[in-house]
């Protein structure tokens, strides 16, 4: 349509933002990972759920993630403006009012929690509310700018969705859902520190105390290695406690070895350019890794239900 092309030439103005700008506030890519992990948590939970209510539960988790994303962009618009990775976000690019982001974030957060409570149970709604609060307040407003351990503790926010999905079905928190939480929790530090290693200058310019800027590259690579070992060990626990079967164990072991190898290769690299490349490789791999682990969880469960093994 003609006006879409024209609209790209019009400067940002109060009330003149495009629909796409509002959608960008919801961090669709982060949301897709949240939806995926929450869906796996919901499907793995014992007991089953009405498909319509299950769909609404996942929708609520997605909207909650979107709401917290909008609150994050509202609060962080000053530092987003100085980082190359985030400078084109709607607020720093001048396409959207900050107040609109705050309003959208609050409305989505409240709506998603209330709807999840009405559709499923209050534990799931409480967990979702806590997740949003943790991401928007504890991580964004407090930890991110004050400690190099920001993403370690803040990573909990990204780890809650499968637990919320599980709680939506069972109304409880169990060892199994805690394991799902722990896998994402331990995955977050090596994932983000790999990114921080090759985007150091960005974080430095924004004065965010990421580990490579504060403790140095050597310490960061050590920490990545330690967390990677802890992560891979944790991914094997579901098999050892009888939660998962052989298919999952093989997938977790093979992809885990790949993760450890890339973390070790990054650890051994000292030359700047090669280190950035190794950091980028680990970052990209870690995304696929988490996807495969969660896919293996559900495939293993489906396989055992269908009597494959």
């Amino acid at each position, binding site marked *: 349509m003609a*006006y879409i092309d*024209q*609209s*790209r*030439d019009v*400067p940002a*103005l109060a009330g003149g933002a495009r*629909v796409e700008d509002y959608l960008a506030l919801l961090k669709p890519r982060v949301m897709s990972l949240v939806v995926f992990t929450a869906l796996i948590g919901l499907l793995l939970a014992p007991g089953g759920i009405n498909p319509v209510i299950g769909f609404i539960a996942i929708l609520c988790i997605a909207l909650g993630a979107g709401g917290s994303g909008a609150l994050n962009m509202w609060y962080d618009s000053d530092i987003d403006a100085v980082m190359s990775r985030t400078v084109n976000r709607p607020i720093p690019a001048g396409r959207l009012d900050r107040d609109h982001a705050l309003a959208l974030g609050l409305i989505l957060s409240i709506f998603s929690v209330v709807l999840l409570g009405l559709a499923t149970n209050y534990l799931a709604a409480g967990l979702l509310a806590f997740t949003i609060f943790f991401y928007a307040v504890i991580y964004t407003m407090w930890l991110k700018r004050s400690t190099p351990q920001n993403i370690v503790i803040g990573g909990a926010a990204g780890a809650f969705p499968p637990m919320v999905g599980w709680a939506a079905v069972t109304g409880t928190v169990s060892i199994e859902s805690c394991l799902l939480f722990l896998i994402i929790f331990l995955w977050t530090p090596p994932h983000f520190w790999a990114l921080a290693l090759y985007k150091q200058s960005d974080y430095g310019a924004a004065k965010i105390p990421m580990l490579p800027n504060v403790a140095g590259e050597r310490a960061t690579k050590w920490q990545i290695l330690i967390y990677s070992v802890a992560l891979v060990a944790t991914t094997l626990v579901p098999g050892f406690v009888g939660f998962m079967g052989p298919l999952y164990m093989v997938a977790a072991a093979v992809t885990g070895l790949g993760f450890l190898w890339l973390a070790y290769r990054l650890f051994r690299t000292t030359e700047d350019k090669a280190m950035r490349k190794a950091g980028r490789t680990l970052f990209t791999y870690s995304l696929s890794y988490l996807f495969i682990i969660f896919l293996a969880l559900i495939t293993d469960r489906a396989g055992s239900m269908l009597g494959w093994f």
Partner: protein
Amino acid sequence: MVLMTEPTPIVPPTSPQYDEVFLARRRRRSVALGLVLGAVVLIFYVLTIVKLGPNVFDRVL
């Protein structure tokens, strides 16, 4: 990606073209908001029916 390639503004804020674009954007936002509100109504309707269960049809007319 559209968002990554936002060009420098070239349309003056007082031109007719600007008004046209502004109205078009506002219309798209209104349509989007209308669809969202419709979806909310639909969600609450379906959720209510599902929560009530099949017994909702089991009554003396």
